[in-house]
């Protein structure tokens, strides 16, 4: 089906685009639905268009994915501009509001480019064909004699040139060509895709002009800070706001109702202090006296819970993948190696804490938020306020980091709830303490691994069990087993082991659990690649050579795919040749084997495919006499298929090394009687420049395979590669995150 339409012909000129603009709309939903949606929705907020060109040549491209630092707000418009053959300096980007007509907008799972690359190419290429047709018609020459240069159509034979802007009126009258009549550029003709282009917002960022959620304003807005229940699910018994009301600038207090289980993205509930600036609201909160009810989650102590998880991990669990018969192999009674691994809760701690502005008026809500998922903002606010989803308009600002936290818009719903009570716009600002204590935490996890070792030192059987409170607990109070997390590095072990079983054991959640950059891949890759290195050491074999032999010959690993994973099954089979290649490249670039490890210096490797991207990472460490670890070098090799923005990808993987150094070395959330113990960067520690990897070398494998993810895949292999390096340097095996829990000397 041709899903492109010349919107200007049909008269849908509104929102971002003015009359006289040549507009090409792309619908991401089937035509009948689209026709209905565009005629029934509130017109001014539904531009329903991705691309427009104005008479002055300005090209407007709608970015429907959120920008949190991964570059998708630049990358996807760049793809449109390339196929359109537009002059990038004439492009402006309009950030889409939340609306299902743009398709899926949850900027998570590292799939913005993967899911929308073909779509964006098609939109740009269709526009280019129509502009060529318009020019050829005016010149009375065959269209095939015309070509394009950035923002111009040219006729080689006569030397005639027409700017895109001058062709707008004519192009707007043309029918949209069929998909088969729209040639895409050859890769060699790409001007922008695969080249180094700066982020669209770079200049605004370095001059302080960029608008993040923290900077959003609405006329007449007041500021709110919310005292949340210390334990998940606690309700207010009574509260005294006399002290709060005496704080200069504080206007009043309001309560927010507790959530109805499952909590999903609903507000936690609590007492909001309304003030005429952020600081007054913060100060007012300190003077509140609140008597909280009890909650069943008060029993949660993360230290004890660790024992529960570990006990569960030693018991048989639900089988999520089975190859051969591990039990029969274990029963043969050869050499057996077992190990247990543990990782704590983590908080996202994006530099911009949760924040949002919203105004409720006449049964409708207008919000500005740094959200990864504006459609979830619509759904959450609609659910909490009992209004229609379509009556929630969510504008998306730049995000000061997201890492998965900002897929959950509870703070935006708080602003909407408070605005409804106050009758004016409200800006809700979370303090850093709120952010760390009331996160949707990365799950705590325990893993148990067991292998039978054959005569050549290679495993003949490999059993792996993982146990953690699943993300499903956020949506279903009875969820105890992982679901989608199994695909995040657990039910797809790429090793050539004849007998293999992967299991998942049950666990209860006592805090909110959510996606955190690369999600379950973090603990799964940690366990699998630490264990692989343990086996290599036990066999007294080189870690890289051993890993390559574990991966085994080049092949497509047979996996089971869900019905919704057919794109993955078809376009992204698990190809061990690609995995082997990144291992070989990372090892070679690191000079692996040239400098012997030991005496406080070591190299370690791990290789993990996540979000359909193959990554191998070698970490070099130095451990001094006091056990202080420094990371002079990281080498990472990346095969993400076709890439749009290589320099941004290098930045993502350099950043992933630092991000991962935080969780590998320092960060940990613990809970006592249901209350999170950490509250700010003094006790929830993040890596700083002095301890971050000093240099990260990123090698991107050239590939014309389908595009895969780049935001998250750098994270999973880092910690096991680091710990394997520490083992090489010191002989100490790290089986628990973060490193600060283990004394090296």
């Amino acid at each position, binding site marked *: 089906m041709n899903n492109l339409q010349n919107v200007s012909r049909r008269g849908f000129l509104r929102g971002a685009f003015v009359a006289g603009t040549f507009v090409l709309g792309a619908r991401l939903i089937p035509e009948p639905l689209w026709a209905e949606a565009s005629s029934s929705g509130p017109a001014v907020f539904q531009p329903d268009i991705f691309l427009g060109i104005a008479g002055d040549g300005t090209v407007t491209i709608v970015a429907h994915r959120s*920008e*949190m*630092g*991964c*570059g998708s707000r630049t990358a996807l418009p760049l793809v449109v501009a390339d196929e359109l053959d537009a002059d990038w300096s004439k492009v402006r980007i309009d950030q889409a509001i939340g609306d299902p007509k743009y398709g899926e907008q949850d900027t998570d799972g590292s799939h913005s480019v993967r899911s929308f690359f073909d779509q964006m190419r098609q939109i740009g290429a269709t526009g280019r064909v129509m502009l060529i047709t318009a020019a050829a018609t005016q010149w009375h020459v065959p269209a095939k004699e015309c070509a394009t240069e950035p923002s111009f159509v040219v006729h080689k034979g006569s030397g005639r040139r027409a700017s895109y802007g001058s062709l707008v009126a004519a192009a707007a009258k043309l029918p949209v060509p069929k998909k088969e009549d729209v040639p895409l550029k050859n890769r060699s003709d790409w001007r922008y895709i695969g080249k*180094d282009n*700066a*982020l669209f*917002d*770079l*200049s605004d*960022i*370095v*001059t*302080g002009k*960029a*608008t*993040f959620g*923290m*900077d959003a304003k609405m006329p007449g807005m007041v500021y709110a800070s919310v005292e949340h229940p210390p334990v998940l699910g606690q309700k207010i018994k009574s509260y005294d706001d006399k002290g709060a009301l005496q704080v*200069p*600038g504080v206007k009043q207090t309001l309560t927010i109702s507790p959530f109805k289980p499952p909590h999903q993205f609903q507000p936690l509930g609590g007492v909001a202090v309304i003030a005429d*600036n*952020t*600081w*007054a609201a*913060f100060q007012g909160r300190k003077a509140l006296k609140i008597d909280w009810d009890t909650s069943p989650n008060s029993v949660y102590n993360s230290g004890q819970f660790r024992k529960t998880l570990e006990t569960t991990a030693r018991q048989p669990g639900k089988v999520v993948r089975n190859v051969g018969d591990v039990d029969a192999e274990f029963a043969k009674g050869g050499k057996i190696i077992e190990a247990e691994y543990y990782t704590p809760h983590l908080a996202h*701690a*994006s*530099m*911009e*804490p949760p924040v949002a502005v919203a105004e409720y008026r006449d049964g409708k809500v207008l919000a500005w938020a740094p959200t990864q998922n504006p459609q979830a903002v619509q759904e959450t606010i609609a659910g909490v306020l009992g209004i229609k989803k379509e009556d929630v308009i969510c504008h998306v600002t*730049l*995000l*000061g*980091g997201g890492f998965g936290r900002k897929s959950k818009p509870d703070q935006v719903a708080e602003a909407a709830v408070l605005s409804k009570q106050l009758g004016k716009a409200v800006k809700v600002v979370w*303090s*850093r303490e709120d952010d760390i204590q009331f996160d949707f935490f990365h799950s705590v996890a325990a893993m148990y691994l067991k292998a039978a070792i054959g005569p050549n030192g290679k495993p003949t059987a490999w059993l792996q069990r993982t146990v953690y409170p699943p993300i499903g607990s956020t949506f279903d109070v009875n969820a105890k087993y992982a679901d989608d997390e199994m695909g995040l590095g657990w039910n797809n072990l790429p090793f050539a082991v004849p007998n293999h079983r992967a299991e998942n054991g049950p666990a209860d959640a006592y805090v909110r659990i959510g996606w955190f950059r690369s999600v379950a891949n973090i603990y799964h890759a940690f366990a699998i690649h630490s264990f692989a290195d343990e086996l290599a050491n036990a066999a007294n074999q080189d870690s890289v050579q051993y890993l390559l032999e574990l991966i085994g010959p080049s092949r497509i690993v047979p996996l089971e795919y869900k019905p919704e994973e057919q794109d993955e099954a078809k376009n992204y089979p698990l190809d061990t040749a690609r995995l082997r290649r990144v291992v070989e490249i990372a090892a070679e670039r690191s000079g692996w084997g040239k400098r012997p490890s030991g005496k406080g210096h070591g190299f370690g490797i791990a290789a993990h495919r996540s979000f359909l991207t193959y990554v191998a990472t070698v970490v070099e460490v130095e451990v001094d006499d006091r056990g202080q670890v420094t990371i002079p070098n990281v080498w990472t090799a990346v095969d993400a298929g076709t890439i749009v923005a290589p*320099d*941004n990808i290098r*930045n993502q993987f*350099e*950043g*992933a090394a*630092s*991000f991962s*150094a935080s969780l590998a070395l320092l960060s940990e959330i613990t809970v006592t009687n249901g209350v999170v113990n950490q509250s*700010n*960067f*003094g006790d929830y520690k*993040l*890596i*700083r*420049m*002095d301890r*971050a*990897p*000093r*240099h*990260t070398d990123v090698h991107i494998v050239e590939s014309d395979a389908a595009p895969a993810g780049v935001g998250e895949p750098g994270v999973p292999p880092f910690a096991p590669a680091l710990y394997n390096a520490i083992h090489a340097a010191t002989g100490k095996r790290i089986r628990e995150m973060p490193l600060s829990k283990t004394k090296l000397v």
Partner: protein
Amino acid sequence: MIRFKVNGTERTFDGDPDMPLLWYLRDVAGFTGTKFGCGMSYCGACTVHQDGDAVRSCSVSMKEVSGASITTIEGISAKEMHPVQKAWMEIKVPQCGYCQTGQIMQAIALLNQNHNPSDQQIDAAMSGNLCRCGTYQRIRAAIHQAAKELA
């Protein structure tokens, strides 16, 4: 009445003298290039210059800026970009960008005092500024580049 300058312009403030400079800049004066990150001087996102020195504006009260000259990110690039900003552009440092104005203010203060800092001196000066995206390697490179430009 507290009198002081922001980006060269005389200003007065007669609100709560304990209000941190950060919230005056952001909520009262509208200089939102200065960011809130932690409120406790742990992260450096709110870094501005007070009489030329880098300070964490979340931890400087309005009564402490009496008579002072404050410079924010908006004040260093009023005409054209500062060489440090240009270096940030050329090296393509930012990812999300939220911490970067604080990083830039800290880097400018460093380069004002030390025209050719070593890696270790850069680390020492910049380790109070967190970047959760992890752009430290590029920040260090950009500071070296700006130092060359300024020399």
